[in-house]
């Protein structure tokens, strides 16, 4: 589901806040996880983050078993709620940031950084592939790092060049669309969950 940008930002904020405010309640964490996954079933990144989740779980075990489960569930739900924003088009995202008062040039730089993240991720993968062809063991990582460091510096120079060539004047391309019924439903559920979490916190 492609969520409207402003709705995505607000829903993400309400959902993550409800996990915090509820004191990492497993019920709230599971509810947030379920809502977020129904919006964005693309969970490839969670697979990549699984070592971090495992590390977090094992280190939390030092405090107590119950705490480890609660905290890991909370972290998982916060990550998935944050991923709702990843369904949004980057130009629309910067328009939404601008709508909430972030200056236009800053908002565009955020979307540019999000796009660069994908490019740099691809660059690391290509450098890794090239290194794998020529070496083995720890040298693969060392050569990847050496090649990527140079590639990343050149990328930033190229980005500055591209912005200059296109006469960048701090304006954001794209426009905000009106939230649809699904967007409003997501926002309403997120707000209700947030209100419940406040009740849980108070009583």
């Amino acid at each position, binding site marked *: 589901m492609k969520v409207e940008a402003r709705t995505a930002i607000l829903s993400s904020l309400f959902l993550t806040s409800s996990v915090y405010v509820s004191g990492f309640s497993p019920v709230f964490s599971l509810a947030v996880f379920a809502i977020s996954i129904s919006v964005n079933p693309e969970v490839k990144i969670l697979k990549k983050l699984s070592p971090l989740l495992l590390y977090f779980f094992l280190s939390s075990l030092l405090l107590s078993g119950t705490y480890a489960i609660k905290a890991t569930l909370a972290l998982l739900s916060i990550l998935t709620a944050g991923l709702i924003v990843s369904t949004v088009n980057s130009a629309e995202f910067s328009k939404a940031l601008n709508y909430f008062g972030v200056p236009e040039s800053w908002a565009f730089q955020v979307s540019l950084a999000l796009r660069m993240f994908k490019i740099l991720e691809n660059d690391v993968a290509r450098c890794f*592939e090239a290194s794998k062809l020529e070496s083995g063991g720890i040298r693969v990582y060392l050569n990847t790092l050496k090649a990527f460091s140079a590639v990343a510096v050149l990328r930033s120079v*190229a980005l500055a060049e*591209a912005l200059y*060539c296109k*006469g960048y004047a701090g304006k954001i391309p794209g426009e905000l669309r009106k939230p649809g019924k699904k967007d409003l439903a997501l926002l309403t559920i997120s707000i209700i969950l947030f209100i419940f979490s406040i009740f849980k916190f108070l009583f």
Partner: protein
Amino acid sequence: MIVVKGEYTYPNGRTVKLEFEMNDREKVFLTGKTGSGKSTLLRVLNGLIPEVYGGKLRGTVSIYGSTGNNRDVFLITQYPEEQILCETVVEEVAFPLVQRGLEWKEAVEIAFNTLKKLELEEIAEKKTFELSDGQKQAVIVCEALACDCKCIAIDELAHLHPDLVKNVVSYLLKDKRAIVLSEHRKELSEGFDRIVKVAGGGIELRIRKNRSSGKEVGKPLVIAKNAVVYRGNRKIIDKLSFTLREGESLAVVGKNGAGKTSLLRAIAGFEKCEGIEINGKVGMAFQYPGYGLSSFRVADETQYIEGLTLSERHPHSLSGGEKRLVAVLKALKYKIVLLDEPSAGMDEELRYSLVKNVIEICREEKKAVIIATHDEKIPEMCDKVIEL
């Protein structure tokens, strides 16, 4: 009117002489050896030099009565991947228009119309990261055409398929604005008002060869039997069969997005494939050559370079063409050599001399080479050709 007379010194001390004149609406074909300063000249025209690059620019620079600027001159640089800023094609084409003060709806309408004129409306809604390098370059040409600039400067259209490049060039020639196209392929100069040759530069290619092995064709190194190649979960190539033996060379040709790079990546083991058998270690020169260059000196990257002036330089400090040359020679260390667009960004002499040398080395050292290319002459130099 554009007048550039003087010289430019890069921050690293390298000096390039500049002499160029151009009338309004004139179509100029810029040619010269690799490293002669064509890219430097184009960067002076749109003000990238000295605005972004720094260094010292001396002499006269008059671009329509002003200094070099990005308002009057739209520059299309060598690597399309580096010029894409937006998520979708239509956003990308509309981006410079929005920066020039147009409303979003108006910019999108112009973007759609320009894409239509170049028969690219099919990719208008596509994500830019899904495009091949050739498609990306075509999108950037659309951006330039959509703008109200006075001159379009193009630093090579090396990533476009020959058919598409001819369409793009003929479209550019019909445009009322001034066009400067820097290209190594002289066959594209037809229809231009003037050919300007930039003097200087050039790389003397001296490759160290081992002549101890025989020249006969040996055992199979790559066997494809009804091979299927995927990009992600999408089937890109279906039922492809060929055998490549020791000492043989194979050219892979096809339109932009046909799957040339995917085939090379599948052979290297980076993409999912069925029906491809590999017997030997694989070396690959990527389309973006920097990925494979991890040493601090060119001399440490490859043993095939002999007395080249670049030997002591950092590989990433080289120009696009020079970097590609080093990446190609580095890949020659291995039994199966995969070259993705090895000739892009090189002058004609260097391009064919390099490919000829690579094929000879592979024959003599019993290696197999696969070259994915848009060049029309390279397939004639190879033993086998596959069209995707």
